[in-house]
């Protein structure tokens, strides 16, 4: 296929062995920290202190998970090296799911509508508007975050799901750009036939374009969902309150509760697992498609 078939000879095998060793090394460097996360979460803080370097859990314990899910009393938590402060990752998990699902659904759907208008409809000013949308890709998020915060605050939407979701709900320039490129490359024969039969744009959009674009829509939805799930800055600004606090913000709060001199490492790692697992599971489901789609579109 490529270079390996072009240069057959012996030294290549030696070279390949070296190359595979490097690949293996990269995989180890990538995977081991995740195992370390799990190992720590399944240990108790006391035995972590005495047994810091074994790959297996220092002693098998669910205590850390109980603690982050608020299933331990303050006394129990303190006895196990936690802070004893209120923490409830069930709630943060729920909030993260609501925030990420709603924004992903809205963003992908509305962006698909806009992409249809940019790729299938002819109207004056189309390229100008599209160029304007693209230009805002250059604006750093922090730049719009300050005025957006002020607006959400003035609307009285601080610490509400509406306040959290609104800036992400309608579009991102990237999502529109991504889908427009797909729509432009899609065959138009079926649509044009339907058009001759008198079908209207709404019907064509829902019954032909959306189903045909299921694959890119799924990829985009995955990328968007992961991005929203991992979002920290905006929820930190507008969603401090426990009722809307998402996992990333919850983790920051949990870390800063740092009790009794030493941090609650086991609890902290249990929390990171709770926050990381849903995305990793989704990746198992979508993995192949996403991996193969990463080129110059997956850029955040």
């Amino acid at each position: 296929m490529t270079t390996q078939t072009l240069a057959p000879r012996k030294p290549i095998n030696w070279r390949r062995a070296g190359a595979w060793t490097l690949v293996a090394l990269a995989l180890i460097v990538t995977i081991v920290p995740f195992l370390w996360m799990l190992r720590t979460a399944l240990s108790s803080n006391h035995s972590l202190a005495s047994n810091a370097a074994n790959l297996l859990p220092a002693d098998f314990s669910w205590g850390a998970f109980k603690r982050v899910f608020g299933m331990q009393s303050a006394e129990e938590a303190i006895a196990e090296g936690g802070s004893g402060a209120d923490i409830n990752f069930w709630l943060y998990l729920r909030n993260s799911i609501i925030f990420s699902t709603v924004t992903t659904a809205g963003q992908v759907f509305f962006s698909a509508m806009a992409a249809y208008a940019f790729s299938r409809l002819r109207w004056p000013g189309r390229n100008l508007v599209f160029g304007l949308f693209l230009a805002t890709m250059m604006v750093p998020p922090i730049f719009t975050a300050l005025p957006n915060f002020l607006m959400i605050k003035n609307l009285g939407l601080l610490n509400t799901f509406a306040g959290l979701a609104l800036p992400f709900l309608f579009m991102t320039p990237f999502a529109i750009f991504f889908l427009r490129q797909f729509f432009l490359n899609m065959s138009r024969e079926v649509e044009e036939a339907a058009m001759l039969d008198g079908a209207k744009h709404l019907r064509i959009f829902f019954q032909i374009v959306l189903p045909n674009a299921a694959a890119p829509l799924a990829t985009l939805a995955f990328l968007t969902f992961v991005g929203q799930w991992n979002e920290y800055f905006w929820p930190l600004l507008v969603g401090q309150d426990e009722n809307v606090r998402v996992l990333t913000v919850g983790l920051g709060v949990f870390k800063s509760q740092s009790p009794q001199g030493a941090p609650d490492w086991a609890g902290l790692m249990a929390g990171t697992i709770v926050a990381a697992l849903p995305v990793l599971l989704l990746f198992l489901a979508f993995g192949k498609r996403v991996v193969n789609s990463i080129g110059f579109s997956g850029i955040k």
Partner: protein
Amino acid sequence: MMTTLTKNPPAAAHKAPQRSNRGRGMAKLGDLRIALLFILPAMIGFVAFFLVPTIRGIYLSFTEYSVLGEPEWIGLKNYTSIFADELFWNAMAVTVQYVAINIGLQTVIALGLALLMHRVAKSTFVRGALLLPFLVANVIVALLWFWMLDYQLGIVNEIINWMGLPRIAFFGSEQWAIPTIAFVNVWRHMGYTALLIFAGLQSIPNHVYEVASLDGASPTRTFWSITMPLLRPVLALVLVVTVIGSFQVFDTVAVTTGGGPVNASRVIQMYIYQKAFGESDFGYASALSVILFVILALVAFIQMKFLKGNESDLD
């Protein structure tokens, strides 16, 4: 398929879609009415959360505004204060140091990984595994390494100690804080960056390599004379995107050092955050973010110009 998508986003905007108006000979307005319907939600989002805030952000940068009361126009005062502000220059220096370490390491490692994947390991499994850190939130990656690099109990210091070397206060010392944060983010982004470069490598046609091989070029020679020049547009794009992202580092700093010790890791975005939300000085913070915006635009422009990212050597 998607690799071919957006080599050149700005140009794509001007390229008129290759659509004929066949079958629907309408007047100039074309599909304007139905288009308005389709574009309405996105337009609302665009105007409310991108366009207006951008303009308002620029306006606020010329005001003094503490959230209470109304913004008060003070002209260029914020900007002149910023130029005399030692903390700002410190933040810039810290950020540039971070970007240099982060991008330098990350690009070299990612390029190496991409070449390895291209030569020997094309499997989706390897690529998927290398992508894992990127899927996990910044905050999670930061906390994971905060633990592994802990001075007392972290596994890395355990190993350092076991080797008979003195323990390192990775996040706790002024000279280590920024390199450590840069390293943590290299770990998160290297696989992803490698996949982007890998996609670029795959777009180099095989016959180029075949000719080189027939001419008896060594792998090293092939790499420098063929792979690198042909990869240049892709590499340029990767650099622009990663450098811009790198300048906006915040999450990792926020949950680990909080900008400390002293000012050692107060990167520019951390400084903006503290000015706005710690000191309620929104005018000053807005001026800082205008400056960040200008810097990013300049960096992107210079990189594209310098690396000639718009041109390919393939033609």
